């Protein structure tokens, strides 16, 4: 039986708070943690399957043109090679998140360097890789004028544009005005587990073990790619070693392994090499972002302009939504928000760790710091002063708004002194020391989701959904939601995820997983509660579920008397998402040391205060925030994809040369969770967490660098060369 809830109204009952089990919100360690640290959690490419062949993708060594032939005879003559799979159904580039249809196919039509064009299948990985590297391709190359997004035409995305009042006039007549342009470089998701799949075909049905974030969409994308009915396809992703957006859509390895298995009638594994991951997986677009502000003498905004340029391949619809939170974060009746997309032949741009705000917010917050300095206002105060009471353009109400509280709590805990913000006040030997802050904002998303909850005859619960846990804690928080609702300790709740044999969850992406599947589990649990109460002959409103007993009396098992209750819950956001602006808010505070000779920057303290609705598990929530802060440090100081200007390939193709932060770059970080229940965000009052932790943090670091040494660095990452170049001497 399926119970459904379409949420059209805020739910202020806070039902979870009335439950008695006391497991919700508790800092319970991740249930799969032990399996992961002991190496017993099986990741997609690790399933032992007899007779499995190994496939490695052949990639195009140019950015634009057509492959007209592959010398398959030569490849088949190479040691160990079993087959060369050339198939027009192969994916040329991965599906964008939630695409829900086959991604771009016809792989021989090449639009970026390193595009997979075919697959070599061999008995061993090494033979397949060698053959793929030696493959002789015949091709026609089309010259690409420039790989630089600043050199080419760009078109404005009209659907995300806001034009209100007269910004130029406001800026001209303002007491304080800012007009600055900030650049950010491209990012890679850089998940630890490379993309990899194993496909098995039994002549009728296909099973693929894959590393994917959103099986509910991926199954459709894969079935559509292969022209198979969906019910003949099964995807399994029980553990995912990091996704960060790079595994949202069905990827090249999944389709290639499937095509090969179907053609050869043998299991085939395709694991991307680290270099292939860097070269072909979606990138975060670089950006150029211009801010124009008009403010009165107190710093209150009357004009707000954010115009940005990002890039993507021709025809790709995704445009890094850098304006997303600028849309509603600050006041300013004269508004101009425009996003334009330059069409270039670097690999596909798509979702990478908090698409949009991850780079939009730091840039915005650097510009705000410049305004605070100009207006002579404490940067914290400037933000508070500019919080609108409703959406500044469309007038919609906020579902809940914790920015001011986050700013105040964060400032206090950090020991923020906003009075004297002149740069270069503190020096320790060669090191300038300074502090900076930034607001955090990330729109809240929820999506339709289904979860099955079974209260078994022995009084324990089983929870099933095709939702994934990409390292965020989904297994654990679902056990907590269900445990709380059904009155069970979490070890009595067995959660199974990552298998399309289960009801369709929301998938992990856009930080929407916990609120979406958590709500679906909540809906299912309400139905289970009703059914059990009916069996016991009492009214659900009078029932207390605790420790496996109803109202402290009979155990569930006694009431069930050998039967079980099986309910699927379906949650769907209704009008609510149209009627309210829902967002996570927060504040970052950073302290840095900047070497006055070398421009090296080390973050010595970092604090984040965040409001993201109900906390489902204090520990996993905190870990999400720490992860976000760590990415903030990477975005601020080290991470940049470098593209060769001649052929557009990614030159830094591994984790030695693409610099994510290492332990030593990350200080002890403090996380404050601002108490919040957001009734319009979801029936469990929770919002997204994961991404919020990086939406602005790099701005706090940039502002701290300025405060430390007077270098206003306007390109991220702020590598030593850029800091030196901006440092006043």
């Amino acid at each position, binding site marked *: 039986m399926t119970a459904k809830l379409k949420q059209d109204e805020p739910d202020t009952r806070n039902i979870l708070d009335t439950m008695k089990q006391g497991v919700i919100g508790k800092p319970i360690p991740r249930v799969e943690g032990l399996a992961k640290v002991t190496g017993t959690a099986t990741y997609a490419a690790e399933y032992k399957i007899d007779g499995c062949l190994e496939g490695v993708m052949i990639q195009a*060594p140019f950015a634009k043109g057509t492959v007209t032939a592959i010398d398959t005879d030569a490849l088949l003559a190479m*040691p160990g090679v079993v087959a060369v799979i050339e198939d027009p159904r192969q994916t040329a580039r991965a599906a964008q998140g939630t695409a829900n249809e086959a991604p771009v196919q016809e792989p021989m039509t090449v639009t970026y360097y390193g595009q997979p064009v075919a697959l070599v299948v061999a008995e061993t990985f*090494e033979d397949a*890789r*060698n053959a793929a*590297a030696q493959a002789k391709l015949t091709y026609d190359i089309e010259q690409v004028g420039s790989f630089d997004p600043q050199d080419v035409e760009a078109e404005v995305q009209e659907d995300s544009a806001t034009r209100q009042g007269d910004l130029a006039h406001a800026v001209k007549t303002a007491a304080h005005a800012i007009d600055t342009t900030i650049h950010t470089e491209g990012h890679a998701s850089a998940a630890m587990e490379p993309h990899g799949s194993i496909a098995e075909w039994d002549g009728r049905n296909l099973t693929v073990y894959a590393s994917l974030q959103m099986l509910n969409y991926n199954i459709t994308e894969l079935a559509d790619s292969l022209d198979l009915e969906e019910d003949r396809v099964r995807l399994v992703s029980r553990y995912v070693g990091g996704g960060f957006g790079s595994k949202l859509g069905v990827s090249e390895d999944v389709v290639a392994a499937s095509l090969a298995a179907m053609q050869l009638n043998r299991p085939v594994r395709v694991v991307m090499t680290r*270099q292939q991951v860097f070269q072909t997986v979606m990138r975060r677009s670089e950006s150029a972002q211009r801010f124009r502000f008009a403010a009165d003498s107190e710093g209150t905004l009357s004009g707000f302009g954010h115009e940005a340029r990002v890039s993507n391949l021709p025809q790709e619809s995704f445009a890094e939504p850098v304006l997303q939170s600028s849309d509603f974060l600050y006041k300013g009746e004269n508004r101009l928000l425009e996003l334009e997309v330059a069409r270039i032949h670097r690999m596909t741009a798509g979702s990478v760790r908090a698409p949009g705000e991850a780079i939009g917010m730091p840039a915005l917050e650097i510009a705000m710091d410049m305004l605070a300095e100009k207006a002579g206002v404490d940067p914290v105060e400037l933000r508070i002063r500019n919080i609108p009471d409703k959406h500044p353009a469309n007038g919609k109400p906020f579902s809940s708004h914790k920015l001011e509280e986050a700013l105040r709590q964060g400032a206090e805990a950090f020991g923020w002194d906003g009075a004297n913000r002149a740069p270069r006040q503190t020096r320790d030997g*060669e090191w300038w020391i300074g502090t900076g802050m930034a607001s955090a904002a990330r729109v809240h998303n929820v999506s339709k989701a289904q979860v099955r909850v079974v209260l078994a005859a022995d009084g324990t619960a089983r929870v099933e959904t095709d939702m994934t846990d990409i390292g965020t804690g989904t297994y654990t928080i679902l056990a907590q939601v269900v445990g709380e609702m059904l009155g069970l300790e979490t070890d009595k709740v067995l959660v199974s995820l990552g298998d399309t044999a289960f009801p369709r969850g929301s998938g992990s992406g856009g930080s929407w997983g916990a609120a979406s599947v958590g709500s679906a589990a909540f809906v299912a649990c309400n139905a289970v509660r009703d059914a059990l109460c009916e069996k016991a002959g009492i009214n659900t409103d009078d029932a207390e579920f605790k420790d496996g007993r109803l109202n402290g009396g009979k155990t569930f098992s006694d009431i069930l008397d050998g039967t079980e209750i099986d309910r699927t819950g379906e949650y769907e956001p209704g009008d609510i998402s149209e009627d309210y602006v829902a967002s996570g808010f927060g504040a970052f505070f950073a302290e840095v040391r900047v*070497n006055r*000779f*070398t*421009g*090296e920057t*080390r973050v010595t303290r970092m604090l984040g205060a965040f409001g993201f609705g109900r906390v489902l598990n204090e520990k996993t929530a905190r870990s999400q925030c720490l992860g976000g802060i760590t990415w903030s440090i990477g975005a601020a*100081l*080290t991470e940049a994809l*470098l*593209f*060769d*200007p*001649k052929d557009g*390939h990614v*030159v*830094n*193709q591994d984790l*030695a*040369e693409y*610099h994510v*932060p*290492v*332990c*030593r*770059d990350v200080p002890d970080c403090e996380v404050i969770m601002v108490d919040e229940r957001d009734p319009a965000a979801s029936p469990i009052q929770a919002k997204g967490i994961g991404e919020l932790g990086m939406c602005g943090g790099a701005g706090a670091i940039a502002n701290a660098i300025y405060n430390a040494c007077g270098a206003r660095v306007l390109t991220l*990452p702020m*590598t*030593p*060369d850029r800091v*030196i*170049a901006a440092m006043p001497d």
Partner: protein
Amino acid sequence: MRPFDYQRAERLEHASQLTRPEGGRSIAGGTNLLDLMKLQVETPDTLVDISRLPMAGIEDTDDGGLRIGALASNTATAVHPRVKADYPVLARAILAGATQQLRNKATTGGNLCQRTRCYYFTQINQPCNKREPGSGCGAIDGIARIHAILGTSDQCIATYPGDMAVALAALDATVEIAGEGERTRRVPVRDFHCLPGDTPWRDNVLEDGEIITGVTLPAPVGGTQIYRKVRERSSYAFALVSVAAIVEMDGDLISRADLAFGGVAHKPWHDPRLSDHLVGSVPSAELFDKAADILLDTAQGYGENDFKIPLARRTLSAVLAHATGTKI
């Protein structure tokens, strides 16, 4: 990775014999060679495992110096009491490199012979004169962020990426090399690595069949010893620029200034003119600046790495200021 024969060298002459033919390659810790074999940058026919040869010792020499065996791990060298006491610049340089796990495996010989991190060198479908002579240089018109500014040629602008050898160059250490038969030769570290010139495929002076047996350090000279490595990430990253310095003062005057630089050239860069300029002078900002002028008089940037010229200047000043206790 391609199939290869594996041979364990039982004796030094055996190792030398096996590595003489083209395609014979010694392997020590394997932290560099294996990575390159996976990428098929290196495709040896025979891997000659020298790791069990008795060359891991660290011993005092008759003249008061120290001999570090070719197979001593980087960790063992960095924590050796005499290295820490008498050659701290070496301990610091080693500890500034790679990670604990890598240093546990990495050896003296392997570290000296580690290959460049040039992006184009490691991508076998890109042109690279070092990997494939005559194919061109991908970096010169490409992304040359980590590349050299000194001693480059129009064929190759790669750097020697390591840290340990930079300290060894400042210390004026000597590499011991065993060749065919009983022949051994000794080459100063300062002359061990080559400049790319028109033979960019040559990293160093080793001939086929030659095996490094150890490195000897001269008797300790004392002084203030500094290894300063500039990088964007605070660990697990190669130097953008590094400076190894051994500086001594005699009253107000500089009496010793042995300097070597990493991240700027195809070899640890040692310029004897610097010592001539600095020794006998009173330290000052102007003196350091003039030293940088000398160091960088032939420096050339390739776009993305132009920043290394001012960065080397600033880092040198910082190091000299620190070493001489000068306020600048």
